[in-house]
C-alpha cells in the first residue's frame, strides 16, 4: 500500500521540479536546451553562458570607491567595465599623490635645519 503512494509522491516531486525548471527558462527567454533539467540553478547557469553577450561581469574583487555595486542590476553602466570609473579613480590616485607632495614640502619636515 505504501509503495504506490511513495511512487506517486516521487513522481509528483520530479514533475514539480521539472515544471519549475521549465517555467524558469520560459521567464528568461528559454535557452536551457543544453543544460540538465535537474535543478533550477544549473539551468540558469547554462542560460547565462549561452545567451549573455561577452560583457565583463562585475569583478568579485575590489571595485572603485565611487562605483555603484547595484549598477549591473539597475541597467546602469557596469562599474568595472565603464572607463569613466577608471579615469576618475586614476585622478583620485593622482590627487592622493599630490597631497603627499604637499605634506612632504611642509616646513615641519625640516629635520632641524
Amino acid at each position, binding site marked *: 500500500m505504501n509503495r504506490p503512494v511513495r511512487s506517486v509522491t516521487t513522481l509528483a516531486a520530479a514533475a514539480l521540479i521539472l515544471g519549475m525548471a521549465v517555467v524558469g527558462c520560459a521567464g528568461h527567454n528559454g535557452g536551457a536546451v543544453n543544460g540538465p533539467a535537474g535543478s533550477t540553478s544549473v539551468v540558469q547557469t547554462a542560460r547565462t553562458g549561452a545567451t549573455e553577450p561577452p560583457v565583463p561581469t562585475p569583478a568579485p574583487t575590489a571595485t572603485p570607491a*565611487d562605483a555603484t555595486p547595484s549598477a549591473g542590476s539597475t541597467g*546602469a553602466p557596469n562599474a568595472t567595465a565603464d*572607463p*569613466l570609473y577608471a*579615469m*576618475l579613480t*586614476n*585622478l*583620485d590616485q*593622482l*590627487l592622493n*599623490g*599630490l*597631497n*603627499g*607632495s*604637499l*605634506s*612632504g*614640502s*611642509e*616646513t*615641519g*619636515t*625640516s*629635520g*632641524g*635645519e
Partner: protein
Amino acid sequence: MKTRIPALFAGLVLGGSLLLVSSGAVAAVTPPGPGPAGKGVCAVEATAARAGATVETLRAFGNCEINRRLATLNDLSARVSSSKVLTGSDAAALTAEIGSTRAGLTSLKATIDAETSIPALKVDIVKIATNYRVYLLVVPQVNLVSGSDAVLASQARFATLNTNLTARIAAAKAKGKDVTAAQADLDKMNAAVTAAVGLASPLPAALLPLTPAQYNGGTAGPILANARTALGKARDDLKAAVADAKACRDALK
C-alpha cells in the same frame, strides 16, 4: 674658554639638530615621502657632543647628521627615478641637484673624518646644513616640483575625461534628455583644470634654480612658501574638477 663652548653649541644648532633634538622643539610631523629620515637618529651623538665637545664626539655627530641626509637623498633619488608624473627635464634637474648635494656631503664627510681641530670641526658641522639645505630646500624642491608636474600630467587625463563625458552628453541629448546640468558640470570641470594648470605651470621654473645660498640669504624661502600655496590651490581646483566630473556623470544617469 667661556666663549668657546657657547659658540660650539651655536654651531651645532645651526649645523644640525642638537638643541632641537634634545628639547623636542621640532613639530612631530611625519611626511609620507622622503623626509627628515629620523630627526632623532643622531640624538645620542648630539647628547655626547653637548656633554663633552671632543674631536671624537663632534666627528660622530657630524657624520651622523651627514649620513641621515645621505639616506634622505637616496630616498629622494629613488622617488624621482620612479616618478610617473615628473617631466624628463625636471627629473633630470632634480637628479643632478640630488647628485651634487650627495657628492658635496660625501666630500664634507671625508673632511670631517680627517679633521683634528675642534674649531675646524665646528665650522664643518655648520656647513652640513648651510651649504646643502637638504631638508629646507632639496626635499621641498623635489616635492613641490613633483606636485606641479602631477598637476600638469592631470591635464591629459582630464582631456580624456572631457571627451568621454562630451560623448555621453551628446548621446543623452540625442535621446531627448535635458543635459543642461551635465554640461554645466563639465564646463566647471574644464575651468577648474585650466585654473589648476595655470597655477602649477610656472612653479618648476621658479623652484629648480633655487640654491642653498639663496635660502640662507632669505630669498628662496618666500618662493618655496608661495609655491606651496599655489600648489595647494591647484590641488583644491583638481579636487573640485573631479567632483564636477562625477556630478556630470551622475546627471546623465
